[in-house]
């Protein structure tokens, strides 16, 4: 028994050694990408095509959220830190400072296109046509009443906001405050509707904090349901509950056209064309950031940038637009592409 177990133990140890130390090395020969879950579906497509069409290894793409990604990205330079981070918002000054503190002085910003944020409901339900103001009134925590006084949101049904809207309870599922989609939605839709009130607009200059707390505050009384960041789950919940609206990225609407439909905002339908030409009001730019110091060290980084910024990837008919990425206008695309391929840092 003892003799046998000793033998097994040494076999185990041997395996551990063989796998663990014999092949470990601090270098890295693949690109490491982290960051936003919104950009993830696009980056992975590009990474896969790049991996299949070149001799380089396929990049590793992690979905960590924009904030988490930038934190990792700004951790330092060297093989143990990622080369690229995806972000569904522009990098903040505080993050640039963090990067600089850790020796990352040159960052290349790549704007890759736009993403629309849509309000959707089940195909069986009635279609909505909302204005930004109505969206604000349905979702805000505090709203101004007729006299301009700020009261907590009294609306429980859509037809209380506007008699033309259906007689059903307000029930909207959306992402939690930690999500970049939520950030963008609040900034574009809520604030946009909020500004429609002149009393609040005046507040912007006199009391910026108050203005923000009114325009960005989402109600917490149950009409808005924080449904997590899994957008497929929201769609499935919408199917089972025709009374509810859901908030998510355009690419999910695009893939689930047979289950849910988009709500018209200011009478504009959330379609590819409308978002691309900018008539649909709720859309935001997507980015990724590259460490210039890693170009030339991590094999294939420059080639990956070239693949991503090629016309067959992010162009009008490129494979990224098939996945729901709204391409930038030709001119802007050309400019960004030039800057990226000449490795111009921010």
């Amino acid at each position, binding site marked *: 028994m003892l003799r046998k177990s*000793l033998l097994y133990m040494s076999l185990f140890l041997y395996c551990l050694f063989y796998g663990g130390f014999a092949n470990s090395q601090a270098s890295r020969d693949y690109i490491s990408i982290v960051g936003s879950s919104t950009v993830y579906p696009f980056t992975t497509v590009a990474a896969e095509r790049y991996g299949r069409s070149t001799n380089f290894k396929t990049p590793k793409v992690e979905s960590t959220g924009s904030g988490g990604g930038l934190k990792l990205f700004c951790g330092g330079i060297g093989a143990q830190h990622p080369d690229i981070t995806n972000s569904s918002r522009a990098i903040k000054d505080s993050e640039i400072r963090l990067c600089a503190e850790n020796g990352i002085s040159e960052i290349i910003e790549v704007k890759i296109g736009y993403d629309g944020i849509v309000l959707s409901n089940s195909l069986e339900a009635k279609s909505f046509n909302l204005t930004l103001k109505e969206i604000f009134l349905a979702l805000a925590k505090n709203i101004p009443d007729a006299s301009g006084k700020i009261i907590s949101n009294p609306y429980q049904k859509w037809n209380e906001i506007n008699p033309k809207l259906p007689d059903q309870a307000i029930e909207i599922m959306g992402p939690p405050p930690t999500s970049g989609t939520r950030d963008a939605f609040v900034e574009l839709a809520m604030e946009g509707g909020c500004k429609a009130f002149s009393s609040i607009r005046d507040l912007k200059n006199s009391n910026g904090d108050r203005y923000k707390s009114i325009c960005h505050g989402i109600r917490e009384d149950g009409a808005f349901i924080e449904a997590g960041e899994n957008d497929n789950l929201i769609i499935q*919940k919408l199917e089972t509950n025709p009374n509810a609206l859901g908030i998510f990225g355009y690419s999910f609407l695009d893939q689930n056209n047979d289950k849910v439909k988009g709500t018209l905002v200011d009478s504009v339908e959330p379609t590819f064309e409308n978002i691309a030409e900018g008539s649909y009001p709720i859309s935001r730019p997507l980015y990724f950031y590259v460490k210039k110091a890693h170009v030339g060290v991590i094999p294939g980084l420059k080639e990956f940038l070239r693949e991503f910024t090629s016309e067959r990837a992010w162009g009008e008919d490129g494979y990224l637009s098939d996945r729901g990425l709204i391409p930038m206008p030709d001119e802007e695309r050309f400019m960004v592409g030039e800057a990226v391929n000449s490795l111009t840092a921010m």
Partner: protein
Amino acid sequence: MKLETLFLFLIALSIISYYIAMRRAIMSVDSQQSISKLHSMPTYHGYYAVICSFVPPMIIIFLWLVFEQRVISTLLISNFSNIKVLSQGEINLFLTNVQNTLYSNLFSQDGTRFQSEIQQATIILKSYQSISRIILSVFAIAVSIIGIITVHRKINQNYRARNKFENAVSKLLMTSSLVAIFTTIGIVLSVLFESFRFFNEVSFWDFIFGTEWSPQTALRDDQVGSSGSFGILPLFVGTILITIIAMLVAGPIGLMTAIYLGQYASPRFRNIAKPLLEVLAGIPTVVYGFFAALTLAPFLRTWGESVGLNVASESALAAGMVMGIMIIPLISSLSDDAINAVPIAMSEGALGLGSTESEVIKKVVLPAALPGIVGGFLLAISRAIGETMIVVMAAGLSANLTVNPLEAVTTVTVQIVTLLVGDQEFDSAKTLAAFALGLVLFIVTLGLNVFGLYIVRKYREQYE
């Protein structure tokens, strides 16, 4: 010498040492007949020799490998005066470049600084590495041989090899049990510092006794929150509510299943049913989460509507029930162990006095197995409190302070996940709150377990 070869060589050495030591022990007594005069059996001399010849070189190899990379890198850099002065990050990049060139031949030419240095460094690195391996091999083998010789010289008739060997093994066993302590220290250290920073920003008492949890307060410079409250009471009420539902499902079912399988079921049936049940424990929690959110929750909702109840689509009930199903096997397997530990003589005695089987179970077996069963339940409760994926998908995020199982609640773990894996800036009070939550959760489970242990200790009985 390659590491694998060195390793094989050391194994061979220790096998040889086993036979040498054994032989030496046998030779140390006068003749084969009087082998019983040896203090320890020859094999123990062998085992001890194996330990002496194998363990020290292994420790050396391990430490060597931990520090090798750092030492070599420092030495390598010191050769290049123009690299030495660079920042740490740039030195890292240089090293990466050198290693990439050495291992993968994937040296990209354009945009690289210090091309010639890299080429030189690659050659130097290669030689350093082979020198390092040679020194290591010689060193390790020498230590191994010294170990063999030392033991070999000590072996005689009265040498207490068995005691020494057993001593060494029991030290090894003790070290293994210390791993648990190190893990705990590691966990505490990883959450403690961040928690302190959080309590610098948010008052501790507000955190513990606040009745409103609203992380909508985005504490980023340019984002605005509504109400900045970090009161964990609603989270705990939600957690406890879901745990209670789960235990109401799993407790009776798990225990009765264990009793049925242990006492009533035919061996054949048991052989089929028990492993089937264990499959429940292995279904990934992600899958349970999807099941709870997409099958059970809508079902409960329509059922509620049909009887006139308003069930939230993310009710605590759905999450709790599925979680209960998940922990059935845990409870039944642990209860089964506890019941099996009750000596069969006790129940046979009760049967002999004319009790029915259920009376035996209720009045003899269960009371005797109670400490073990309580221990199992406590483990299951801790598991339910700490479960993440099911509640992330099925319980939602709205922090309602309610005990109504039909409403949506949120739990501590859900908040940890949403706070940590989201699109926000790190180092804000929001992220730090996750660590504080982790710490509180850690303390709560600790309290629960100390209590459980106390119960088991106090009421445990030793049979036979």
